[in-house]
């Protein structure tokens, strides 16, 4: 089970491995955007990681990377179609970042550095853990930006924060706000980690 918890904690893809920074910065204008892109990544990783692991003995090592990308592209396209059909609203918001998951380095990195060297079950758990860690991080960054930019926080249609606590400040939804928020959240995560270790 260590494979599962690693992605949430000490090998968190966003705060520790710094993988998939492009969507992390681009779609996190609201908590729910980050959350749903995270869900897409969980789905993709739980398809690609076990498949890569199952195929690891038959894939000729010279075409290893093209084979992984092919698998990833197929999985992402399938998830893209599912989102378009069942979550049309979210599909419109995520836009290009959903298909761009093909080149999200988190997914290729897990295929190459973990799934291609480990049995299917641990590869699946690793993908699940990494996906969950990514989702957690994106929801967190998105939530902070949503609160700072609009003074409100909504997830699943419910408003989680009374209005008027924070004055709305535009910069947090714009690209510079993404970098600032990521830096601030990262500083907080580092601080908390140091405090916990004593």
């Amino acid at each position: 089970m260590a494979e599962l918890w690693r992605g949430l904690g000490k090998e968190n893809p966003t705060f520790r491995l710094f993988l998939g920074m492009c969507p992390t910065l681009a779609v996190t204008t609201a908590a729910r955007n980050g959350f749903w892109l995270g869900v897409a990544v969980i789905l993709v990783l739980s398809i690609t990681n076990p498949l890569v692991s199952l195929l690891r003995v038959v894939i000729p090592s010279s075409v290893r990377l093209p084979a992984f990308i092919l698998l990833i592209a197929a999985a992402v396209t399938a998830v893209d179609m599912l989102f378009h059909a069942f979550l049309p609203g979210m599909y419109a918001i995520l836009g290009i970042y959903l298909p761009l998951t093909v080149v999200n380095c988190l997914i290729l990195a897990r295929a190459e550095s973990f799934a291609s060297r480990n049995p299917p079950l641990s590869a699946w758990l690793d993908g699940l853990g990494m996906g969950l860690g990514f989702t957690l991080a994106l929801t967190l960054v998105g939530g902070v930006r949503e609160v700072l930019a609009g003074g409100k926080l909504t997830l699943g249609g419910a408003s989680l924060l009374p209005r008027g606590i924070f004055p709305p400040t535009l910069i947090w939804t714009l690209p510079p706000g993404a970098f600032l928020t990521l830096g601030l959240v990262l500083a907080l995560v580092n601080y908390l980690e140091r405090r916990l270790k004593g």
Partner: protein
Amino acid sequence: MNWRGALFLGVMAALAGFSLSLVHQATAPVLRRHLLAAEEAALREVLPGAATYRYRTDLVKGAAGGKVRLVGAWEGIPSGMVYLLDSPGYGGPIRVMVGVRGGRITGLRVVDSAKETPGLGARVRESWFAGAFLGKHDTGGVGGIASATVSSRAVLRAAETALNLDRRFGRR
């Protein structure tokens, strides 16, 4: 030549393509239902009170290519027209749906403003702005949005174009 690698990739690509065609077959009907329902809901919102809406291919094909492009037109039965227009905004075309009956705007909806700046130009989606067009037979009395001049002008231009089109094609 690495025949083994090429063969392997070829077989894998074929399998991937086959699996994707299955996913496509499973999701396509759901998607089509969604799109139709969304279109119907949007038409009902901008032109309330029509029993059905008939798509007017002839208008869309015959529309002159100005700055604002007509990309869809529906005739409300028994009365009214709905125009779907692409109007150039700040970051790209803004898609606007306008309902007109008897020369007056019955409803306006910004369908797509994804290319506009969040917090500035994208504010043209806010419902009070669309509300300002209700009942208007020209756009003279509608003001723009501060710090979203280009985007709000684009919506205004779309409304103007819809009214002009209606003078030519709309049923009285």
